[in-house]
Each structure stands twice: as C-alpha cells, then as structure tokens.
C-alpha cells in the first residue's frame, strides 16, 4: 500500500523523469565471442596445416596449376558448361511452354520429357549416348517406314564430345524446364490479363511481360543449376573427354601426386564458381530494376 495517493503520483512522475534520462545499453552476447574465438582457432590451425604440411605438395600444385594441359582442360570444362547451359535452357524453355500449354496433349509431352530425363542418372544417360552406335549403326533422314534420303554412320555423326554435349543438354533441359515453369507460374495473373486486354500478341506477351518477371524467380535456381552443371561436367570424364577432372586424373595416374592435382582441380572449380556467383549477383540486380523505390 502506498502511503498516500498524492505521494504516489509525485514519485511515479519522478521515476519517469529519471528513466527518460538514463543511457541505453545494448544486450551483451558473451557466447558469441566464445564462438568467434573457437572458429578463429580452427581456421588458424587449418591454414597452418596448409602451409606447413608437406603432403599438400604446393610446389607440384604450382607447377601444374597453369600448365598448358590443365588450361586446355579448363577450356573444355567451360565449353561443356556453356553448351550444356545454352542448349539445356533453350530446350528447357520449350518443354516448360509445353507443360504450361492449354493442350492436354502438349502438356503430356512436356511432362513425359521431364519424367524421363529426371529418372535416368546423368552418368547412365551419357554412357548410352557414348555407346549409341551399338544400338543404331546408321542414322538416316527419310520418310518414316519408307525410303531414306541421306544416311550417316552413327560413329561419325556423334563424337564423344557430341555425345557429352547431347547428354548434358538433354539432362539439363528437364531441370531447366521445371525452373522456368516455376518462374512463369509465379507471375501475377493480373499481368497476363493486362497484356491480353491490351491485345499484345501471345509470343510478345511471353517475351516482354512474363519472362522478365519470371526471371526473378528463375535466376537463383538457374544459377544453382549452372554451377551444379559446371561441376557436373566432371562426370563426362567417364567418356575419356579431356575436361578438367579427367585431365588431373590422367596426370596423377602418371606421377602419383594425387592431392596436389586434386587441389589444382579444386582451386579452378572454386575460381570459376566464384566468377559465376558474381555474375549471378549482377544479373539478378538487372532483373530487379522495377523493385527499387
């Protein structure tokens, strides 16, 4: 019980005046500092090991990192990534459009494509293409079940590199189709209605109105896919194509410097993935241009 009403009022008022004049201190987080210290110690140990442990074999790393054979292999890896991405997304857009079409038949075609190529492991599919000439010795153009006009030896038409690009692109297209479709269905219905009400032709609607907006949802996933494909190209080493991973295997098969050469490949993969991530940042910023206030 307060001694009297008047006194309480006065003291409450005094208290408010005092409170309003006190400095504010942010909450302390001592455990954060413990965590920081622990991570720093671990990081220091790791760096120390990299420098002092002779098994990392940095001289060998340095000798091979910019060797001509490695640079050529990096070029092949980049080429496979670019072709796989461009062809994969080009076909992926087509498959996405099929799946989004109003025709049940085209929807089914798109769905079946995605189903088939997501079901087959990439490495299995690549080996199929690599060995396609066992199945079909000759490929020909002509009337189905009728006469042939031109015909090729399958081995001549599909080189190992061709088989690799084909396999990567077909595989990529299935995933790209779903990424593109997810982007397109994320665009507000009102946008399509507005475009339709303005009488903008269908293809132009897709290219000018839908796709630029869908890109915002597509890009993070697409960047994931490109980076994943970039490292996934190492799978084509099973077809004896001289990409980065195959090349380092060849070299360490000869000189047994396994760790140093794996580090050569690792560092190249890290450098190029970093460049892709930086590129992603700028492309995303471009497509977010209407979002700034």
């Amino acid at each position: 019980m307060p001694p009297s009403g008047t006194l309480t009022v006065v003291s409450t008022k005094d208290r408010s005046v005092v409170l309003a004049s006190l400095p504010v201190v942010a909450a302390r987080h001592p455990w954060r500092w413990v965590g920081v210290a622990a991570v720093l110690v671990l990081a220091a140990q790791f760096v120390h090991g990299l420098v002092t442990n002779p098994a990392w074999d940095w001289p060998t790393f340095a000798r091979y990192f910019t060797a001509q054979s490695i640079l050529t292999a990096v070029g092949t890896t980049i080429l496979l990534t670019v072709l796989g991405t461009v062809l994969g997304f080009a076909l992926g857009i087509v498959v996405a459009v099929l799946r989004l079409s109003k025709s049940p038949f085209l929807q089914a075609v798109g769905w079946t494509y995605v189903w088939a190529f997501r079901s087959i492991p990439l490495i299995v599919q690549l080996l199929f293409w690599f060995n396609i000439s066992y199945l079909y010795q000759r490929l020909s153009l002509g009337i189905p079940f009728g006469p042939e006009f031109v015909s090729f030896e399958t081995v001549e038409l599909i080189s190992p590199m061709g088989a690799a690009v084909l396999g990567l692109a077909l595989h990529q297209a299935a995933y790209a189709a779903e990424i593109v479709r997810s982007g397109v269905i994320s665009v507000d219905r009102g946008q399509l209605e507005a475009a339709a009400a303005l009488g903008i032709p269908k293809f132009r609607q897709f290219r000018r109105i839908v796709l630029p907006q869908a890109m915002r949802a597509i890009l993070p996933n697409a960047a994931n896919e490109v980076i994943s494909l970039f490292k996934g190209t190492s799978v084509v080493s099973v077809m004896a194509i001289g990409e980065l991973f195959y090349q380092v295997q060849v070299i360490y098969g000869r000189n047994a410097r396994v760790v140093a050469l794996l580090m050569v490949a690792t560092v190249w993969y890290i450098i190029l993935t970093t460049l892709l991530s930086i590129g992603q940042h700028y492309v995303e910023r471009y497509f977010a241009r209407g979002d700034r206030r």
Partner: protein
Amino acid sequence: MIEVLGVHKSFGSNEVLRGVSLDVAAGEVVVVLGPSGSGKSTLLRTINHLEKVDRGFVSIDGDLVGYRQHKGKLHELKEREILKQRRHIGFVFQNFNLFPHLTALENIAEVAPLADARQFLARVGLADKEDSYPRQLSGGQQQRVAIARALATRPKVVLFDEPTSALDPELVGEVLDVLRDLARTGTTMIVVTHEIGFAREVADRIVFIDQGVIVEQGTPAEVLDHPAHERTRAFLSKVL
C-alpha cells in the same frame, strides 16, 4: 456502337449474368452501379472477351467480339484475332496491373509508338514521371498511367472496372479528374464504380445491375433521385 444482347455467364453452378442486354452509343458515358457480386465486373470482362459468354453476344460497330458467324453457328475466334479486337477496347483494372519491370513510359510504349506514348502520359498529367517505375508512383499515379496505357491503342470504347476502389481516399480525386476529362472530350466509356457523386455528375446514363440482370437504367436524375425499383432504392439507401 456497342451492343450487348442476352448475355449469360455462369461460373460452375453460379449464374453470374442472366440475360443482360445493353446498348451504348458513341461518345456516351455509362456508369454501372450494383451491389458486390451482382455481375457488373463480369459484364465488363465479357465485353472485351476476358470472359467467354455462355449465350448471347457482344458486338462493337457491328463486329462480333470473340466469335465469327458461320452457317448458323458462332465459332470462337483464334486467340490472335481476339487479341487484335481487344486493341479497340481499352480496359482499366481495379488494381492497375501495370508491368512492374517497365517504366511508366515503357508501359505505354509497349502498345504505342514512343512519341504517342509521351503524349498519352502528358494527357494524364504525368509527363515528368516517364522514367519512374510503377512502384515509385502513388496508387493514383499508377492508375493514371494505366488509363494512359488503355488509351494508347486508340480504342473505340474504354471499360473501367472499379478504377478507384484500390485507392486511398485522398487519391481518388485525381483519377476521377482524368475520367471527367475523358468524358468531356467525347470518349465512349463504361464505368463500374461505387462513386455515386461521380456517377451523378458525369454519367449520361446509369445502369443498375443486381443478381445478374439489369434492374433499371436511365439518367442520373431518374435512377438516383427517383428509382423505380425497390432493389435500386435498397442499394442507394446503403451507399448514399
């Protein structure tokens, strides 16, 4: 100029339009009033074929919208032809539907040459905002850009679907000013709105819709001050 005859439209078992007929003359301003769910928006959307009709037809200057008559049947047109027809019918949405990745000017230039786009933007008083993205504009400004965009295909008629319903009260006036200006300069307009004051001032004719049928129509003085029908009176007593 616009003829709507016996239009029926159902969504599932819900019959939204139950035989609506409406004629609009060139230069006429028709305001459509009615309670929510009465079918006013659906009626507008059938006029530019955003909704297909189940029965009845819409024609503009004698041309059927969305269909072609052939041997006693109405054949639905290909999408490409419908899109071409829609350039004669401007449509302004309640929530603007500007393209957010394009500037105000680019939104209009999507359907008109650049010089024309500038003129239309100036006409709604936003010449200084041509490089602004929709998100950088107020709701009222966005709707004015949307109106400019709807005018840019030089349509024969402009349909307004509750153009001020998504706006803060203090922004309604600037959009209604644009509509007034259009009405004064002879634009043929059909406006669905809840702004009774605007209807009284600008409409040549007011059409009152309830439960999918036109209950009554006439001059603002007739419909607003001396409604003939009980349902109209009940509606007006709630909104006036």
